[in-house]
């Protein structure tokens, strides 16, 4: 194998007129193939993999337990209360859909922009997207309460002669997220077919050969095939780009089209998309750092890749910070009393702790990425990416819960104000467990797949 290690060559600098190397320490195609295939061809994964997979699996079992408890008991176990009908479930849904966006951004938008460095991380970022969207899909599914009636979400002829109501953003969500999942899966699989063919041709055992042969669909690297393949890939990228922007826009419509102060703002679609990319890139860094260490991919996922991703985190972090500021400005500038109250209450009301966690994680922390020392330091970027993940989860929580908890449009709020009681979402332990469980669900699935970059 290569004798040059990533840390010996600094490819993070930019020399005018000279391209920085994207792959380090490799002299021919065969070495690159070897490095990529090695994690899949290892007889046993590294010890750390077992530890991480074990922890993830335990949390997934916990998720299975609390989801059953929820289904058999009811959505009240989340501490949902009137008027806070959406809390953990929709927070997690929005958070996980957002995580997925980075994968599509890397695979589609960076492809259209001819960002060649994407190839080092795109496949595993796409895999992250798929698992993230699966996690996202779980929450509306269990949020409907009577999960056995979840098929009501789809326009299926039924005994009541009723159809879903297509003027509702919640139904747009069903179509947006299911399309997003399908297209992400296609994008990932199309990219994977030639790689599976490589695995098939290298496979030693009969079973591996058959399995890889089946899933590589008989790919033989024909240039007549490559021609259509490249067209199709370009088309998929061109289709996924507006799709990924539409998905989080539609998710934000769930809120923005309502009349609720704190939700009813036109900034929501771009603000949600920027936040999605922000959190997604942080998640890619969180996953890429251990993956490249454990599977010896440092020469392919180089420091330059991580540096680039940290720059994206910085930019989108600033956009998110701008959106927070602009929301406050518009609340003041609108002169709307309820709107003003909603935002003052968001920052200084009963959920101010969540608000300030969000601001410090999402606005202040990423500013450290202005410094190249921070952008190229593995431990620091890992810690900062965790902060961003936490911050973005709280952003969704803050938007949903603070706006609902002080909903002054509903008559029961007027009553509760008379009584001097402000309704709050009471985060029971089950809610927190489900949030963690979904995270480790993704992590477990990912550690099984994290090596196919």
């Amino acid at each position, binding site marked *: 194998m290569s004798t040059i290690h990533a840390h010996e060559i600094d490819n993070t600098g930019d020399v005018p007129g000279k391209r920085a190397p994207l792959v380090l320490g490799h002299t*021919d*195609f*065969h070495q690159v*193939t070897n490095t990529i295939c090695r994690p899949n061809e290892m007889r046993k994964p590294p010890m750390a993999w077992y530890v991480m997979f074990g922890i993830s699996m335990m949390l997934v079992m916990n998720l299975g337990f609390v989801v059953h408890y929820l289904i058999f008991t009811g959505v009240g176990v989340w501490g949902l209360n009137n008027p806070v009908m959406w809390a953990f479930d929709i927070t997690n849904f929005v958070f996980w859909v957002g995580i997925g966006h980075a994968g599509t951004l890397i695979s589609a938008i960076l492809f259209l922009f001819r960002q060649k460095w994407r190839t080092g991380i795109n496949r595993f970022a796409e895999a992250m997207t798929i698992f993230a969207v699966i996690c996202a899909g779980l929450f509306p599914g269990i949020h409907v309460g009577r999960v056995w009636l979840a098929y009501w979400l789809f*326009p299926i*002829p039924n005994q009541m*002669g*009723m*159809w*879903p*109501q*297509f*003027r*509702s*953003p919640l*139904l*747009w969500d069903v*179509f*947006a997220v299911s*399309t997003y999942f*399908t*297209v992400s899966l*296609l*994008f990932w*699989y*199309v990219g994977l077919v*030639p790689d599976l*063919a*490589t695995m*098939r*041709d*290298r496979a030693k055992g009969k079973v591996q050969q058959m399995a890889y*042969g*089946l899933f590589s*669909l*008989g*790919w*033989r*690297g*024909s*240039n*007549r*095939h*490559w*021609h*259509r*393949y*490249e*067209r*199709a890939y370009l*088309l*998929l990228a061109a*289709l*996924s780009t*507006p*799709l990924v922007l*539409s998905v989080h826009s*539609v998710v934000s*419509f769930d809120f923005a089209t309502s009349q609720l102060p704190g939700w009813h703002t036109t900034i929501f679609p771009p603000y949600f998309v920027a936040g999605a990319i922000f959190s997604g890139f942080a998640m890619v860094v969180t996953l890429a750092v251990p993956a490249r260490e454990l599977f010896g991919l440092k020469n392919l996922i180089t420091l330059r890749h991580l540096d680039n991703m940290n720059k994206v985190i910085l930019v989108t972090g600033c956009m998110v910070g701008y959106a927070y500021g602009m929301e406050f400005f518009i609340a003041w500038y609108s002169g709307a009393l309820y709107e003003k109250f909603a935002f003052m209450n968001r920052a200084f009301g009963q959920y101010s702790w969540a608000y300030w966690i969000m601001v410090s994680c999402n606005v202040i922390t990423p500013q450290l990425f202005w410094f190249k020392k921070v952008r190229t330091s593995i431990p620091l970027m890992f810690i900062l990416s965790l902060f961003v993940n936490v911050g973005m989860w709280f952003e969704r929580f803050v938007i949903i819960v603070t706006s609902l908890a002080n909903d002054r449009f509903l008559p029961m709020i007027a009553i509760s104000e008379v009584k001097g009681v402000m309704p709050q979402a009471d985060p029971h332990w089950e809610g927190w467990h489900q949030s963690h469980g979904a995270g480790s669900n993704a992590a477990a699935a990912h550690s099984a797949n994290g090596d196919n970059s």
Partner: protein
Amino acid sequence: MTTLTTQTGIATTTAAPARLYGLVAEFENPAQIVAAAEKIRDKGYRYWDCHTPFPVHGLDKAMGIQRTILPVLVFVAGAAGCTTGLGLQLFTNSFNFTIWALVWVTGYPFLISGKPALSIPAFVPVMFELTILFSALSCVGLMFLMNGLPRLHNPLFTCDRFRRASDDRFFISIEARDPRFYRSKTEADLKSCGAAAVEAVVED
């Protein structure tokens, strides 16, 4: 695999004589295969192909491949998706027609916030999503179908040397059914293009 082949391409038959599938020539780098493809194209072969581990820039032109009509088909599929989206929403939410779609179904004109029955703006997101869904599914499906895939087997897979086509070597294959295919002449053609090795592949 009833036969073994030698480096010079002379098949040594062990049992019943197997039919020749074609010849495979190996090249060591992308520049070589582009130059070779131009020569093979100019010799007028029809049933031939290049096999590379990754798409090689300029090889389409060197082989004289015509631009695929895939984008046109995908556009048609997208338009069909858009129409389906509109039709679905108009039928289910705006009118009370009864039609037969595997079962008899009737629409239900919802009256929501006094909005008109034909509230097209509210129908745009689902139309858009179905446009993308239909386009993407047909894009991938048609791409594989037009490529003649999935295919469980191909005679080329019997050639051990050919395994490197997905790793670090570049191949040209010329099929025996090509009208201009003559074993010795074709082999000489491939050699003259700078092939590192030429091998015969038989149908198994």
